[in-house]
């Protein structure tokens, strides 16, 4: 190899190694499988005041964060009702909401949830929630998919 080519080639090799190292780091983070927070099963159901039986939920279920003050939650509500009709179990987590408003909201729009948990923000923090609505598709306790913002038909059609 020509002497004057050694340094540039070495530089390119160092750069290539750095880029590969960086790409490997990014892939590791993307492949990290996140589990659903145990707090979901350690918080009593709002209606029957009992903890959710994890086995009874089956291997696939959905966790949906909602609030009565959240307008986009209302937009996705018919889709949640449709999911319920199709037999998909949904755990509703009512995020930082007034109890009376929440009860009124459910009464008015219908209840698509198998269980409802009232959350002061602790479950949301543990799950890494950015805002409501937010929906997690869970299989064998692992979060398969996370939708931030309202659900659209395309998001759920594969499960219907």
């Amino acid at each position, binding site marked *: 190899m020509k002497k*004057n*080519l050694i*340094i*540039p080639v070495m*530089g*390119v090799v*160092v*750069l290539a190694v*750095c880029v590969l*190292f*960086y790409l490997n780091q990014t892939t590791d*983070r993307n492949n990290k499988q996140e589990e659903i927070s145990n707090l979901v099963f350690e918080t009593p159901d709002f209606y029957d005041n009992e903890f959710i039986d994890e086995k009874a939920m089956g291997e696939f279920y959905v966790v949906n964060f909602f609030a009565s003050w959240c307008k986009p939650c209302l937009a996705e509500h018919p889709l949640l009702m449709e999911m319920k009709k199709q037999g998909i179990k949904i755990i509703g987590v009512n995020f*930082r909401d007034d109890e009376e408003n929440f009860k009124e909201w459910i009464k008015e729009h219908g209840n698509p949830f198998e269980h409802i948990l009232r959350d002061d*923000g*602790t479950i*949301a*923090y*543990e799950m*890494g*929630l*950015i*805002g*409501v609505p937010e929906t997690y598709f869970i299989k064998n306790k692992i979060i398969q998919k996370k939708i931030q913002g309202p659900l659209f038909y395309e998001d759920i059609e594969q499960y219907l």
Partner: protein
Amino acid sequence: MKISSNIYKLIIIFITIHVSAISFAGVNELSDYFKTIRCLVCEGQSIQESDTEFAINLKEQIQKKYNSGMTVNEIDVELVKIYGEEISFNPQKNHYLLWGTPLIILFIIFIFIRNKIKFFKKT
């Protein structure tokens, strides 16, 4: 008798000042920390400046963790684990590669040009 009661008063005043100083230090430490946490639903704001539901909840949760005895560093590690590095204005990982790559490229270009000049001078 009067002297001893004065001593008691002094001790009580001292303890009160000390406790207030400690709690103010805690408040200052937390509000300084809030300034380093990015509000993920705002544009370029920290949770200290933001009034969004996300920021309010995060501040409350961090306050709870702090009151339960967690240090700011422990909370920071937990936050990054949950929300990823983008949550912090002071990333934990060092980004030498990010800052170093342009320098490496400049160095390669410099060597390349220098060699070319040498080559042309020779010929």
